[in-house]
């Protein structure tokens, strides 16, 4: 079977052409390095079956990275195949460098100038270009179906051979630098002869003066993110979630009435009402958020703005082992961890992606606010606002520390490519955005939805049945969850809240953090929507939920902030990073929550007993001691390992 290879610079549109020519559905994007492995598909080329191979982007035939090696090895192994050399019309000079390398190497190539939509930087005379290069040159739009006929016609043409004017016998003896200079001189002349330059620098835009300005970049980015955040999690997102909720009630209410009439209000009714339809309503509540988050993410990524954000934040986040693109996922985690974790999938580095997804739940999501308001409001009164702010900050600090630890141990970040091409601003196409949305929504509904409903049913069984499988209603007998609450309560005594009801509420919070408040309300016999009344009920001496001191309340709030997120987040985590990392993440969350709560409880307790300044002095002294210990250890280690190697500039300079 005839084989056709797609070769070109990174971000020149190879995968777009591959998808269009072979009717494939591979992931594309307006940034460097989307394709990292060869992809193959059979396509119809003028009535004959041909194999089309999409390769990762290369700059020349000398591979320097893994992806480039994959492409170059395949190219040399299949040197007799037809090669489509895709060149970006607006960055022709650098793209033609690879074309010259391919012609010098004797490959059978067709040069395809990708005519991307928008104002062109170059107007190209393809015929003249073809005459000088001695190969077929076509000017097409890689995403246009009709242009594929023109391209297919060229694929049947016989191989053309022409010696390029600079490619003399002396050329082979030149150094790499001299060869590059000769090629670029040839390209400069070629461009003068065959093109008309119409505008400015490729990739440059007036908006970059703001987007890349050292003072304005951060405020502009935060403003854009605040808008996305508000639209997704508050105004538009909530509106759509409510409407979907109403639609679901409209559809399920007759069904529920039918079940009630048939079996009465027993466990079967509750199974459908709470576990199955409850799970469905949770999925539907998340659906608008998934759609909106991915819509904004694809717009920001395809436009090229996310590459600017990654450029600005790369070195800051790189310090803690994250990628510049982690910013979006982590900040969206303040809205909802479940949907935010899903957005980590677009990151190139697998370890950075896993770390970002694991750290996302440490950002205090909006579902935790009712817990802070009810429990914190009851005990801390007007000071609760400072408590809430501190909790948000604590979540970020814990995430930073964990990221650093994970980066040093099990999830070392891949060294980022040293030189990356900067993509231009491009208008996103509605077709592409809708394709991305459909793909993600489908995956969310089928894969994550099924896990969410299953987990919902499991937790419902645990909270509704006793060990003898007797149905528990309104707390008449002990449910399995309640039993576990009583068994686990002593573990939480060092944290200041070893109360079975609190532990049971924490266990039920695994379904969703909102359920934790409902559980507290259920134990105290209050309506969960009446926040003030609920807060007052916790303070009453008859309350089942009781806290011994302010320290235990703060410790409980810290535990709620850091412990395992809801079932949906865990399901999403499993989907994105796999079972092994999900189990590790859950264990890590439980461990970190326990340790931090224990520390916070004891420090606040000491504040209450010994006074503010005395405790601050003690904590400061311990902190200083630990810091000094770490500093000295680091110094000793750096001295013992530095033997004046050529890789470590700083240490060598110090030696000199």
């Amino acid at each position, binding site marked *: 079977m005839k084989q056709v290879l797609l070769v070109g610079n990174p971000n020149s549109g190879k995968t777009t052409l591959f998808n269009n020519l072979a009717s494939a559905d591979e992931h594309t994007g307006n940034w460097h390095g989307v394709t990292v492995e060869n992809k193959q598909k059979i396509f119809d080329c003028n009535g004959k079956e041909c194999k089309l191979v999409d390769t990762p982007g290369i*700059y020349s035939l000398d591979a*320097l990275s893994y992806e480039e090696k994959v492409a170059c090895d395949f190219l040399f192994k299949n040197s007799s195949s037809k090669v489509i050399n895709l060149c970006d019309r607006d960055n022709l000079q650098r793209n033609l460098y690879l074309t010259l390398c391919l012609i010098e190497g004797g490959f059978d190539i067709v040069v395809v100038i990708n005519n991307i939509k928008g104002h062109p930087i170059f107007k190209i005379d393809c015929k003249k270009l073809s005459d000088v290069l001695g190969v077929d040159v076509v000017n097409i739009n890689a995403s246009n179906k009709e242009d594929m006929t023109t391209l297919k016609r060229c694929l049947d043409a016989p191989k053309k051979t022409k010696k390029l004017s600079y490619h003399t016998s002396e050329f082979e003896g030149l150094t790499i630098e001299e060869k590059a200079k000769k090629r670029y001189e040839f390209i400069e002349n070629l461009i003068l002869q065959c093109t008309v330059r119409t505008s400015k620098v490729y990739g440059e835009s007036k908006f970059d003066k703001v987007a890349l300005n*050292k003072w304005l970049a951060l405020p502009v980015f935060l403003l854009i993110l605040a808008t996305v955040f508000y639209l997704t999690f508050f105004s538009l997102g909530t509106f759509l979630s409510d409407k979907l909720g109403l639609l679901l009630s409209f559809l399920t209410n007759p069904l529920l009435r039918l079940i009630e009439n048939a079996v009465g209000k027993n466990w079967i009714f509750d199974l459908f009402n709470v576990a199955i339809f409850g799970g469905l309503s949770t999925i539907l509540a998340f659906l608008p958020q998934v759609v909106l988050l991915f819509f904004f993410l694809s717009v920001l990524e395809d436009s090229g703005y996310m590459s600017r954000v990654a450029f*600005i934040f790369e*070195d800051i986040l790189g310090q803690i082992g994250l990628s510049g693109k982690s910013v979006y996922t982590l900040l969206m985690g303040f809205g909802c961890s479940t949907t935010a974790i899903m957005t980590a999938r677009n990151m190139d580095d697998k370890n950075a992606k896993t770390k970002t997804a694991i750290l996302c739940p440490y950002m205090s999501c909006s579902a935790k606010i009712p817990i802070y308001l009810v429990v914190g409001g009851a005990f801390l009164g007007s000071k609760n606002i400072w408590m809430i702010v501190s909790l948000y900050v604590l979540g970020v600090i814990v995430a930073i520390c964990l990221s650093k630890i994970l980066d040093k141990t099990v999830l070392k970040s891949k060294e980022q490519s040293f*030189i990356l091409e900067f993509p231009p601003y491009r208008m996103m196409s509605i077709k592409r955005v809708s394709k991305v949305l459909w793909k993600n929504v489908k995956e969310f509904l089928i894969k994550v939805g099924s896990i969410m409903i299953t987990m919902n049913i499991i937790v419902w069984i645990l909270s509704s049945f006793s060990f003898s499988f007797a149905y528990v209603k309104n707390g008449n007998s002990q449910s399995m969850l309640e039993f576990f609450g009583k068994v686990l309560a002593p573990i939480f005594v060092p944290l200041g809240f070893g109360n079975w009801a609190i532990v049971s509420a924490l266990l039920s919070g695994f379904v969703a953090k909102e359920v934790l408040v409902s559980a507290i309300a259920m134990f105290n016999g209050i309506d969960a929507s009446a926040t003030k009344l609920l807060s007052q009920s916790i303070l009453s001496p008859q309350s089942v939920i009781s806290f011994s001191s302010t320290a235990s309340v703060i410790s409980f709030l810290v535990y709620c902030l850091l412990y395992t997120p809801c079932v949906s987040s865990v399901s999403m985590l499993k989907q994105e990073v796999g079972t092994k990392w999900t189990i590790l993440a859950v264990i890590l969350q439980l461990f970190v929550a326990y340790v931090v709560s224990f520390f916070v409880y004891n420090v606040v307790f000491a504040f209450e007993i010994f006074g503010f300044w005395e405790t601050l002095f003690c904590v400061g002294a311990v902190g200083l001691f630990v810091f000094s210990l770490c500093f000295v250890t680091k110094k000793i280690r750096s001295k013992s390992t530095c033997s004046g190697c050529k890789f470590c500039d700083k240490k060598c300079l110090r030696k000199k």
Partner: protein
Amino acid sequence: MLEIFYCMETLDKVKTQKRYQIVGFCGNNQRILQRFFELGFTKGQMVKITAKSILKKVCLVEIRGYLLSVRTELLKSVVVK
């Protein structure tokens, strides 16, 4: 000659938004130099640092009409005037 010598500096130290001419390359890392040559960093070529990241560890370089993001430490290999 002496004047030219004093005018020369490596690309990691130059001011942003100002054009410079490449006069040579230094350093032993052949992989990085090769990549620079392939990307169009040749003697006599004009180059400009368009922006720097917050901690100034990455630079945005304009060369031959397009933009590249390059680690600042690597720009030590490019000598400009």
